[in-house]
């Protein structure tokens, strides 16, 4: 119930119950808010995206409380200030912490809100706990990582990773604004832990090891439903494939996938012919072997030369002498 109410308040733009809340949220948020504007090394080149980034990080933990409050209570006053078109949201969230306590309009509203919340949520004595507990739950469910020791820190960020993904052919990823349409369209996300929006987000943040070690990146069937619906036209499937390339390089390649690779290496076909099919082919008057690398050994040699030149044999750990995977 309390969640529903909070959501309702957020949607209607009403403020949150309890004076303490804005303060608390400001506290919990401080590390993020501080570090990002002070030293924005991840996104030096794009002020726009870094603005988005700050917002999304914040939004994940406290979206309902702050932003709507801002809009309702102080937009009229601040609209002149938020004229800069590039980072309107950031300016709002920045002003939140400074202006909220001072805002004269808040006081009367808060008291009425408090009453409301007391009736609906929890007894009046424990507004702090009532506020804190669901927030913890929420922040847990909103992040990929549950245990505290798994919290993302600056040390986890590889500042080059985003550039690498972009250079590999998915430049468009920089303009993702995390709307989640992709995840909504994803048939794999309906049945596995795979969340394509998060994958894109983590890739853009530069959480390279976090992304490439995640098994769920292999749950994508490359069906393109996400990409077809992306309102920013991001080549999402390319992002997935590029991230998987890095995963493969780092050794996260499933044995079954190496095996498929070795079939092509050995025969030129990912699905080589078998005896049953050779019989069938003969029966219907086709050559027993198709006119492919199966029939032309010199063609297979060309394929193997290409595989050696690109280093794919090493990638899957193929031992040419033994004629098998290591």
């Amino acid at each position, binding site marked *: 119930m309390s969640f529903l109410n909070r959501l309702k308040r957020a949607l209607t733009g009403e403020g949150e119950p309890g004076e303490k809340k804005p303060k608390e949220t400001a506290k919990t948020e401080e590390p993020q808010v501080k570090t990002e504007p002070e030293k924005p090394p991840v996104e030096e080149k794009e002020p726009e995206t870094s603005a988005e980034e700050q917002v999304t990080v914040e939004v994940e933990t406290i979206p309902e409380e702050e932003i709507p409050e801002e809009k309702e209570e102080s937009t009229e006053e601040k609209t002149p200030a938020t004229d800069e078109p590039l980072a309107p949201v950031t300016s709002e969230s920045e002003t939140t912490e400074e202006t909220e306590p001072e805002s004269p309009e808040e006081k009367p509203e808060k008291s009425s809100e408090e009453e409301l919340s007391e009736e609906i949520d929890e007894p009046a004595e424990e507004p702090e706990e009532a506020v804190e507990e669901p927030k913890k739950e929420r922040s847990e469910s909103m992040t990929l990582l549950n245990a505290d020791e798994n919290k993302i820190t600056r040390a986890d960020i590889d500042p080059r990773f985003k550039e690498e993904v972009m250079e590999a052919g998915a430049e468009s990823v920089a303009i993702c604004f995390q709307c989640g349409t992709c995840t909504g369209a994803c*048939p794999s996300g309906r049945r596995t832990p795979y969340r394509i929006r998060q994958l894109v987000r983590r890739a853009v943040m530069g959480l390279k090891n976090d992304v490439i070690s995640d098994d769920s990146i*292999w749950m994508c069937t490359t069906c393109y439903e996400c990409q077809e619906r992306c309102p920013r036209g991001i080549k999402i499937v390319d992002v*997935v494939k590029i991230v998987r*390339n890095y995963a493969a390089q780092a050794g996260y390649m499933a044995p079954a996938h190496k095996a498929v690779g070795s079939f092509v290496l050995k025969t030129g076909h990912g699905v080589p012919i078998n005896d049953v*099919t050779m019989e069938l082919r003969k029966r219907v008057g086709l050559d027993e072997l198709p006119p*492919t690398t199966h029939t032309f050994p010199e063609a297979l040699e060309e394929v193997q030369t*290409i*595989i050696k030149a690109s280093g*794919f044999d090493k990638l899957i750990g193929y031992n040419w002498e033994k004629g098998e995977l290591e």
Partner: protein
Amino acid sequence: MAEQEFAYFLGCIMNNRYPGIEKATRIMFDKLGVGLKDMEGASCCPAPGVFGSFDRLTWASIAARNITIAEDQGNDIMTECNGCFGSLYETNHLLHEDPEMKDKVNKVLAEAGREFKGEIQVRHFAEILYNDVGLDKLAEAVTKPLNLNVAVHYGCHFLKPSDAIGIDDPIKPTILDELVEITGAKSVDYKDKMMCCGAGGGLRSRDNDVTADFTREKLTNMRDAGVDAIINVCPFCHLQFDVGQVETNNKFGTDFEIPVFHLAQLYGMAMGVSVDDLTVDAHQVCVDSALEKCEENLSTLDEITGGE
């Protein structure tokens, strides 16, 4: 019809598992007066979601090598597999758009004495039927109308990514439904028709349980619509609905038994190719129910004329 010839790209699953699709295609194109020239020494496309996921350069280089075989012929490529279409079309497109990648690929290809020039187009079987042969000519070639209710499965890499391919609307396409209905079969709408079969992207080989769960959902929706058969334009989807249907039954205790036909096999049936040549007897899921229904309809065709 003007002399037209395509470089016929076989791929893997069609020729190495379902040769009836290849046979039906050769007979059909002969009847339609469209030439098919074998691409001698072609290999795996290689699979877009699999090789593309491992190493982009290897993927593009092997695909580009296949394209150079058609360039030597001076023919556009025809493939009747969505996966092959995806890899070959995408690579062709990529190397046109990205000169840097083209240089990289050509460096690799040079080791094998080949060079990608970018002189030909990559085409999909169904799109050639629709745009080059045309529905009228196809209708003329139908000698045995099929009164089947079928679930059309588009698959993923036939129409998508649509901004690069542009064959039809990727969300609500009609091209395959129109092609199917020329044979007399009726394309029945079903829930989440455009959903993936679940096999792509390396998922089938790596996590078959997840793949089977996709397939179960598709099969459930198809059965709810009361179809007699599934029609696809991709041997990998074909394999997933055929072999994967049995796997799904084993995994989930379901009892699906929906016959599966590639569009080439459906056209083969409608154009009088013998059932033997279609190798449908080698399918894992028995197709007799659909074949019998076709026979029934033939014998009673006069009585039901105008019935609808």
